[in-house]
């Protein structure tokens, strides 16, 4: 959330792997090695359940087995399952933050931990945030205590094309590969507005203006289109039984353009840092010109001005509840932004953090946004507002078939709250990822401690 932290977006897809295999004969790079933690069957009983699909179920049970949700209903029975009485408590899907810099701007904020912005040129779609994630960031444990089970970790927003983002499960591991969300697409972080033009313009480099920003996007997309065409022509040649001479015509690998072609083929999702309404509309036209899709505008402090247009375009908005004013493009913030974005049919409103503090309290931030909407006459119920933290971010990241809702067959990413989560007094009591209990507020043995924090301040009672 800091003013200085600029963020571009990167995204990875399964499809990327397919694409790379097709175009360069490369294997999937840095594949996920994530494995669910083994778990017993869990039957959580008598809870109020917000499903993430828009429903609220009273006095309902949910059964978790082999890492999946296998049953939801009243009076479920499962003899072998461990039973948890959740009477008076609330259950939601695990929360998902589409905009985190955990691991790439880790705590403590050492010079050595500043790994989120490759500020050497305005176009660096070849860099991947995952290659900079420090898996020992203490921030992961704090986010887990706030009920966050998945997040997208993005590069910063210094560059027009900042690089690829990665979606991870919120589990401690010795590698990001072991956190990497299975089969999640990559993101591409892009940035509008002040950051790129400030970072480069202040060095008398392009872009120095918003004109330069757009020229920079267009030039890169034009190159990506040409590159894609040369790849396609080559594939056609080989498919027709090309000879050795034809094979020698294989286009040279270009890691920057590979990422952009991934977007053009719909395999990598664009996450674009953009505050102002007019700039978001410019970008929607840009996407039409080059025939690609924007997944999500991030920050979108002026999204409320163009809620209808964003819903019409099918683009999500990942916003803050009340953060504003730190720069000119954030000057028109209103606390009703999320509620107003959420209003039109077909909208996709998301509450994001972009902050190691905010990610711990996504429920509180959503509560603020919900109540601000209700204060101006909207009728936003908790079962709707929870979608800003679960199903909508899942959709934004392309993982909605696996998680983000409490639906039979989905990953058992589940949070038990001590009360209605839309409150400052709510605590995530127990957090399950793929059916495994990975956080328990009442059991220190089930509260992870990163290597970094182990043994600090020995002798002090914590």
């Amino acid at each position, binding site marked *: 959330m800091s003013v200085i932290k600029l963020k571009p977006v990167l995204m990875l897809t399964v499809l990327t792997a397919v694409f790379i295999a097709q175009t360069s004969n490369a294997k999937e790079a840095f594949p996920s090695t994530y494995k669910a933690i083994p778990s017993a069957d869990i039957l959580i009983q008598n809870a109020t359940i917000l499903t993430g699909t828009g429903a609220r179920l009273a006095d309902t049970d949910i059964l978790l087995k082999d890492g999946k949700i296998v049953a939801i209903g009243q009076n479920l029975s499962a003899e072998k399952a461990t039973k948890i009485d959740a009477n008076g408590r609330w259950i939601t899907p695990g929360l998902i933050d589409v905009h985190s810099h955990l691991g790439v701007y880790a705590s403590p904020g050492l010079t050595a931990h500043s790994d989120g912005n490759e500020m050497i040129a305005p176009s660096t779609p070849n860099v991947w945030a995952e290659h900079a994630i420090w898996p020992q960031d203490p921030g992961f444990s704090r986010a887990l205590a706030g009920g966050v089970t998945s997040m997208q970790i993005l590069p910063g927003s210094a560059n027009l094309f900042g690089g690829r983002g990665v979606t991870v499960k919120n589990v401690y591991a010795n590698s990001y590969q072991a956190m990497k969300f299975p089969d999640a697409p990559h993101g591409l972080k892009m940035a509008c507005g002040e950051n790129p033009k400030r970072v480069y313009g202040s060095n008398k480099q392009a872009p120095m203006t918003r004109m330069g920003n757009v020229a920079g996007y267009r030039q890169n997309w034009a190159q990506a289109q040409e590159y894609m065409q040369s790849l396609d022509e080559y594939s056609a040649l080989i498919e027709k039984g090309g000879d050795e001479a034809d094979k020698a015509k294989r286009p040279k690998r270009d890691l920057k353009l590979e990422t952009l072609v991934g977007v053009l083929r719909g395999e990598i999702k664009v996450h674009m840092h953009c505050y102002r309404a007019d700039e978001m509309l410019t970008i929607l036209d840009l996407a039409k010109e080059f025939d690609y899709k924007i997944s999500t505008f991030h920050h979108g402090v002026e999204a409320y001005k163009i809620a209808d247009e964003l819903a019409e375009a099918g683009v999500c908005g990942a916003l803050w509840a009340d953060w504003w004013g730190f720069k000119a493009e954030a000057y*028109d913030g209103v606390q009703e932004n999320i509620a107003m974005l959420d209003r039109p049919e077909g909208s996709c409103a998301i509450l994001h953090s972009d902050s190691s503090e905010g990610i711990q309290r996504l429920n509180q931030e959503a509560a603020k946004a919900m109540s601000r909407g209700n204060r101006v006459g909207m009728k936003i119920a908790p079962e709707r507002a929870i979608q800003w933290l679960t199903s909508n971010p899942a959709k934004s990241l392309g993982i909605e078939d696996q998680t983000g809702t409490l639906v039979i067959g989905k990953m058992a990413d589940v949070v038990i709250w001590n009360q209605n989560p839309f409150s*400052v007094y709510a605590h995530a009591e127990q957090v399950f990822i793929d059916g495994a209990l990975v956080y328990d507020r009442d059991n220190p043995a089930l509260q992870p401690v990163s290597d970094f924090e182990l043994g600090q301040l020995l002798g002090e009672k914590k």
Partner: protein
Amino acid sequence: MRNFLISLIFLTLLGASAMLQAQDLLIKNARIHTLSSAGILETSDLLIRNGKLSKIGKQLQAGNNTQTIDAKGRNVTPGLFGGLSTIGLNEISLEDSTVDQSLDFKQMRPEFNVKYAYNPASSLIAINRIEGILYAVLKPSITGSIFEGQGAAVVLDGRSFPQGANASFISLGSAGKGDSGGSRAAQYMLLEQAFSEVTSGGDQNGPFRLLTQAGRLALKSRNNPYVFNVNRAADILRALDFIKANSLNGVISGAAEAWMVAAQLKAAGVPVIIDPLANLPGSFDSLGSRLENATILNAAGVAVIFSTGGAHNIRKIRQAAGNAVANGMPYAAAMAAITAVPAQVFSYAGGKLEVGAVANLVIWDGDPLEVTSAADAVIIKGVSTSMVSRQSLLRDRYLAPKGNMPRAYQKP
């Protein structure tokens, strides 16, 4: 002539505000957070006369010229404290032309006082006031100096200028290292020298003199607050030693590891200013940062004040206080940390609802520390203030249905 006209306008405005205050205000059936020994009064009334609380009790009677508000059981608190802030000192953080809280002299100029830059008409003030934030303490900073300058408390009524005692700010630990030659040890070398210059005048002609005459004057009063920003437990103890040795009215801010030295803070009678949301080891000075900081300090008897810093979003202080309660701090103590305690430490009128106190208060639509609540009415010196801000107008412009004319013609 021009001065005369300005005086005339000023007197007219003064007259108008005096007229507004002439009417008594009776708030009935309120749940009153007195922040005094009376605690919370259920279903009680407040009578306001001449901008002050003249009576508090059950079933008070309205006079002939009394405006009445039925609170219908709603919570009423003193106006809240928004923390150490740069509100009124900057409009857009990244736009230097709007920013006045920072001095880039690279000199030790503790006499730099940001109150002279305060703009009561800043849009940030109404935006935060309508959320119940009525006070802040202005916080300066100086590049290249562990002395950050001075500030003072201000009432966010959109008219007043900062009043009351000048508070001095001193930045120690890793945050001040760049200003002390790279070592935190040198910070005490500099502090000792600066305060000895205040008492003895220092070496009149020496090349290493730190302070100007104005700087020595600025540090002369030991009764005004001296806010030491420091996080590491060991550094807090050093600061306490310095405060004691120099008989300063010391305050510790930052204080991430204060819970580890709560007993020493209590023994020294030094208040702390903390962010109750801080729980990450942001630096090697704050490895002990934890959510229970406020709870432990309060239990030890230390006076606690909350601050989340910044300017634009100081309305977040309620959420911060609510989180302190969610992590074990008694409700009354968390409320005091954003009302009575800062009023006492920074010597401004407010922070309690008791007879004789200034009638700066807020009526809430729910629990004031709950994130789903909001202020229904903000009353300053007994007068209900406008609940309109630049943000509420932007919201209303775009909430309205689209018409044929551009939104620029919709002026709600």
